[in-house]
């Protein structure tokens, strides 16, 4: 298992460099390296879970189960920071998710990116991303986690802006980078506070020290960590980057912006769960934000005309579900939903990629009737859509119901909002399904089914999306929880899903319109956060500019003028010294030395 983890990193880093160096000509060969790294990651996670057996680790997430490597870094006499890799059940589960999804995405990209000229860069970045993501989930210290977190963010930036000649792509990449950076500042501050309080950033030691911390400190740390998580996972005020991130290649959206990187926020909270467990108030905030995000984004998804935007808002909404579960204290349910969501959402994204590839458009209004032209794609899409909608016996049903149940028990109000969000989920995905796959084709191209390298990953992921639910009991027990479903919740959820589906079907029939009216455009644009940011930023920039103008003219310029006069005066006095005569210079140095020596003697008397 240790070897497999190390092989993952070795392959990722060597692969990233090798592919980049080998260039476009060798990419037909070198892209297999990009496929091997995630396979090794999945294998390492799987072999750990099989080796650990059911119920191998109990209780809270626990690091240090199987330390792969551990080194001291930045060590000082009294304190130091270790970095290392360690695998526990949580990390293993994440390794499997990352590995399988990344492998499928890379395989899918073989076909999807076949025509692209910059394939070497693409596969190189994917390889690097895989390695960084594996490092993120297996890191045994928060420092290592943070480093990987930033590398992952950088990969995301580079891949969103992959087609950098398109201005929109470059802008989207910049936006994603800046917005997530906002959260990362919080994360870094949280780490600083933690280090200040506990003098370590090793996960195991930090978690052991949490009970000794003061309540306000824990709340502060939890809040700051949550800021980082919210940035990465696109939670409510910071969600604006994710829809724009769809400018990147679709497989990238499937990997980074659906399954793995955006889920890193959930992972972070789960990883540092003891902190959040101790921070009751912060949990309430997380619950609120999660519910707001889940409900708001699902409504936004209802109004999109771009198939990828639908999925993007859907991802935000589902991440909101996970955070709601975290806020309600059910981190196991959140992680389980993370796993199933990774399966069905990456499936949906890849299927969307296949649709875009086959039909030549990503506008839902120009699709339709793809069911006949693209049988495999449409079949797998429907599996994914049903899983997203939470229909039994697919995986989404189990994971979402666990969340619904937990949240309902925590706060019925939030639970009700989540139930509604679930209904809207079914509604928008049914609408999108009908628009894309039913009826007649409205576009201009000739839709066709994609090649084997593209539909094979779809089938694999569809199998996962369909069957993962069966593992729900196992999963809950592996983390010390309990499996099983609450019948009333399940029944209510199914009923709402069916009702939402019917409405969505009707919406799909009427055809899609771009949301024109005020309210609808407001909702479709992500509840006006972008506009608010622009307005707020604009106003504050103007205000601060006015202020700084005054400061500049008065204080700074005045000081500069004073310094100038002073310097002129002094240099006028001293210019005789700069004679260009080396002898005079060395003489002055010697006289200075004499003065220093004399002063030392005089003072040391």
């Amino acid at each position, binding site marked *: 298992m240790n070897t497999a983890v190390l092989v993952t990193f070795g392959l990722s880093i060597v692969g990233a460099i090798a592919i980049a160096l080998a260039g476009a000509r060798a990419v037909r060969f070198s892209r297999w390296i990009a496929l091997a790294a995630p396979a090794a990651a999945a294998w390492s996670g799987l072999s750990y879970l099989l080796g650990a057996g059911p119920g191998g680790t109990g209780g809270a997430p626990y690091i240090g189960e199987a330390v792969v490597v551990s080194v001291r870094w930045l060590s000082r006499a009294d304190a130091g920071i270790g970095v290392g890799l360690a695998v526990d059940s949580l990390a293993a589960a994440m390794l499997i998710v990352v590995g399988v999804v990344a492998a499928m995405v890379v395989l899918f990209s073989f076909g999807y990116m076949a025509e692209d000229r910059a394939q070497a860069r693409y596969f190189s970045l994917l390889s690097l991303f895989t390695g960084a993501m594996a490092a993120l989930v297996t890191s045994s210290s928060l420092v290592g986690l943070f480093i990987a977190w930033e590398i992952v963010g950088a990969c995301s930036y580079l891949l969103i802006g992959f087609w950098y000649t398109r201005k929109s792509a470059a802008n989207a990449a910049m936006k994603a980078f800046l917005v997530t950076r906002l959260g990362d500042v919080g994360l870094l501050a949280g780490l600083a506070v933690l280090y200040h309080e506990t003098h370590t950033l090793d996960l195991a030691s930090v978690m052991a020290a949490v009970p000794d911390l003061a309540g306000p400190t824990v709340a502060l740390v939890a809040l700051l960590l949550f800021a980082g998580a919210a940035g990465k996972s696109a939670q409510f005020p910071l969600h604006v980057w994710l829809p724009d991130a769809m400018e990147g290649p679709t497989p990238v959206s499937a990997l980074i912006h659906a399954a793995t990187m955006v889920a890193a926020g959930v992972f972070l909270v789960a990883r540092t769960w003891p902190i959040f467990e101790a921070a009751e108030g912060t949990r309430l905030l997380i619950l609120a934000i999660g519910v707001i995000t889940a409900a708001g984004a699902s409504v936004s998804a209802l109004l999109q005309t771009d198939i990828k935007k639908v999925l993007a808002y859907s991802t935000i909404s589902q991440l909101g579900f996970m955070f709601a579960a975290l806020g309600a204290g059910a981190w196991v349910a959140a992680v389980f939903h993370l796993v199933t969501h990774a399966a069905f959402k990456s499936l949906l994204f890849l299927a969307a990629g296949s649709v875009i590839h086959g039909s030549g458009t990503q506008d839902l209004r120009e699709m339709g009737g793809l069911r006949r032209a693209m049988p495999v794609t449409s079949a797998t899409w429907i599996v994914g859509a049903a899983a997203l909608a939470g229909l039994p016996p697919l995986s989404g049903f189990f994971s979402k119901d666990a969340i619904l149940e937990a949240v309902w028990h925590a706060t019925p109000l939030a639970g009700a909002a989540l139930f509604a969000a679930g209904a809207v989920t079914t509604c928008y995905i049914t609408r999108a399904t009908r628009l894309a796959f039913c009826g007649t084709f409205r576009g201009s191209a000739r839709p066709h089914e994609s090649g084997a390298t593209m539909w094979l990953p779809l089938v694999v992921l569809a199998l996962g999306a369909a069957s993962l639910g069966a593992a729900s009991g196992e999963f809950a027990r592996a983390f010390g929880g309990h499996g099983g479903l609450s019948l009333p919740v399940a029944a209510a959820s199914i009923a709402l899903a069916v009702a939402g589906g019917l409405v969505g079907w009707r919406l799909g029939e009427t055809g899609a319109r771009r949301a024109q009216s005020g309210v609808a455009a407001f909702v479709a644009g992500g509840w006006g956060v972008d506009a608010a940011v622009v307005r707020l930023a604009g106003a504050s920039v103007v205000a601060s500019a006015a202020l700084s103008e005054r400061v500049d003219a008065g204080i700074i310029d005045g000081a500069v003028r004073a310094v100038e006069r002073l310097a002129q005066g002094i240099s006028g006095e001293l210019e005789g010294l700069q004679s*260009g*005569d*080396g*002898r005079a210079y*060395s*003489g002055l140095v*010697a006289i200075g030395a004499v003065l220093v020596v004399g002063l030392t003697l005089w003072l040391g008397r």
Partner: protein
Amino acid sequence: MIVVIGCAAAFAIGLYAVLTRRELIAILAGAEVMLGAANVQLVALALARGGDPAVASGFSLLVVVVAAAEAAVGLSIVVTAYRSGARSRLEEFGEVDAE
């Protein structure tokens, strides 16, 4: 004690050479005298104060090596400057930047 005084004297003499010589190479020679005297002073003081002779000698060795490198660079500059304008005296270098 005699070494300390002698080194101080040699250092001062080297300084005098640096201050009064006109020829660049002679100035460099004066600087070498200063360096050598300082190096001996370093060793002598370290030993007189009960330091580890190995440490003192090791550091002096490094000083010797580094000073030699400095001398090589300085002489190469002198020779290059001479070749570029047949100047070898310090006062002829007043307008190097004018080139």
